[in-house]
């Protein structure tokens, strides 16, 4: 009978490596070993070096055969250009010192996000970012309107560009200039991701429900993650700077209500992309189960799941949050 329970040959049953013996006093509880820590980290700052590159890859992976293939390929091209600009600026030694250090301290002291619109206004690198982005883009496959928007933006004055950037930053995209705002948003994302990455994560505090603690931006989507210290916790992804910040699950991201929250999905299409709806404020936000599919990207999969937006709008829910590369 014994043979039935013996696994492998005798060679494999070598003695395990001796473990250094500890006295009782030296043994301390180590909850980290089983993945539990006292609290979930409040923010995860963006990693600009990989953020845009991974996004471009995800968009290209989603595009083939998709109904929105042409648009996904355009945004993939923008994300690729963002990665190029980011790499160029990083190689050139990007100066991200805050032009308004005193103002920032005041904002943090009064519970406001450290990055404000003054950062863009006082930052000469925004124009360099935008120029670099427009040069890096290959729009030969894009429709005429896209190229017209790029050319229009190239010819625009600095004041005009800055004006657009501030409007995008404040979430008030001018209706008649949505096309140009696509490129302005992309340049802003590069600028702000780099600035946010330099912030001290431990010093950041919650600002309000659905408001980025770094730049005050609106969330693009909510992501259920699987990182070791925050397994299955929910993070919101900032539409501007790409920061991920923790938001308690089953709680509306727009109004904070916890009673009327439901999750809808097109089961036949993808189980890992849902919308979180709230019957208190009748809004919804995309809810991505990244712990099941690690490839999911807030921006890319928000665009790819546009069918879900159309379906949920029929139920009378409005979109909370914002995807700057896909304004609905």
């Amino acid at each position, binding site marked *: 009978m014994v043979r039935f329970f013996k696994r492998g040959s005798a060679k494999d049953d070598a003695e395990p490596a001796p473990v250094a013996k500890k006295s009782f006093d030296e043994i301390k509880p180590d909850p980290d070993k*089983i*993945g*539990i*820590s006292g*609290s*979930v980290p409040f923010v995860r700052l963006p990693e600009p070096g990989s953020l845009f590159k991974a996004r471009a890859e995800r968009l290209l992976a989603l595009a083939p055969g998709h*109904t*929105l293939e*042409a*648009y996904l390929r*355009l945004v993939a091209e923008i994300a690729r250009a963002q990665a190029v600009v980011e790499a160029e600026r990083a190689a050139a030694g990007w100066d991200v010192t805050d032009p308004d250090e005193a103002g920032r301290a005041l904002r943090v002291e009064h519970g406001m996000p450290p990055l404000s619109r003054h950062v863009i206004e006082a930052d000469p690198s925004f124009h360099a970012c935008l120029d670099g982005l427009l040069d890096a883009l290959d729009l030969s496959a894009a*429709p*005429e*309107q*896209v190229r017209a*928007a790029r050319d229009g933006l190239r010819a625009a004055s600095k004041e005009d560009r800055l004006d657009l950037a501030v409007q995008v930053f404040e*979430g008030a*995209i001018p*209706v008649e200039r*949505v*096309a140009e705002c*696509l490129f302005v948003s992309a340049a802003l994302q590069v600028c702000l991701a780099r600035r946010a990455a330099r912030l001290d994560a431990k010093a950041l505090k919650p600002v*309000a429900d*659905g408001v980025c603690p770094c730049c005050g931006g*609106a*969330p693009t989507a909510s992501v259920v993650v699987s990182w070791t210290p*925050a*397994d*299955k*916790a*929910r993070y919101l992804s900032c539409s501007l700077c790409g920061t991920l910040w923790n938001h*308690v*699950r*089953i709680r509306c991201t*727009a*109004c904070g209500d916890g009673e009327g*929250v*439901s*999750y*809808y*999905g*097109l089961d*036949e*299409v993808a189980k890992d992309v*849902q919308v979180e709806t709230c019957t208190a*404020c009748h*809004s919804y936000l995309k809810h991505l189960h990244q712990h099941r599919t690690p490839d999911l990207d807030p921006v890319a999969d928000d665009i790819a799941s*546009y*069918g879900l937006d*159309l*379906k949920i709008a029929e*139920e009378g829910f*409005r*979109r*909370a*949050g*914002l995807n700057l590369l*896909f*304004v*609905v």
Partner: protein
Amino acid sequence: MTVQVSRRGLLKGVGAGLAGGSLGALGFGGLEPAMAAAVRPFKLAQMRETRNTCPYCSVACGVILYSLGDRSKNARSSVMHIEGDPDHPVNRGTLCPKGSALLDFVHAETRTKYPLYRAPGTSEFKRVSWDHALDRIAALLKEDRDRNFVAKNGDLTVNRWTTTGFLGASATTNETAWLTYKVVRSMGALVFDNQARV
């Protein structure tokens, strides 16, 4: 803060033939009707997630119950999955083997859902009303207390009742626990324990 960015209605007002948002503005206007047509055959599946407390022990781990259906009158809801609540400070999303098996507890055929009564001398449990059950419990408590209550031990007043015990539940709030203690102790009962330690 509620961020509501919906320019669709506004764009429709601006001029007929203008498709909304980025798709329209960038010359992809044809994709929107195509997308709508592509998802038309699909139905939305609604799921709810509900917070609760594991009923097994005093650790009182937070759990999330995943259910299908919207709890409306015509729909039949059903719990389909249970897992630890990652936001709960006690268990941070983890569960012990007993807690992990809660779904079988919910759907168990032998689960007690209403008061059952087996009369002396019979072999079967019979369903009874809550009133019947509570009246019977009260009557038996009073009968036993009247018979066995000890008011004095010699000259010393003790007011104790040791022949009946009480077992509290684990998923109670602070307030429920306080009330339970007050009710049980005010009757003089000393045998009082909590399910949490069983």
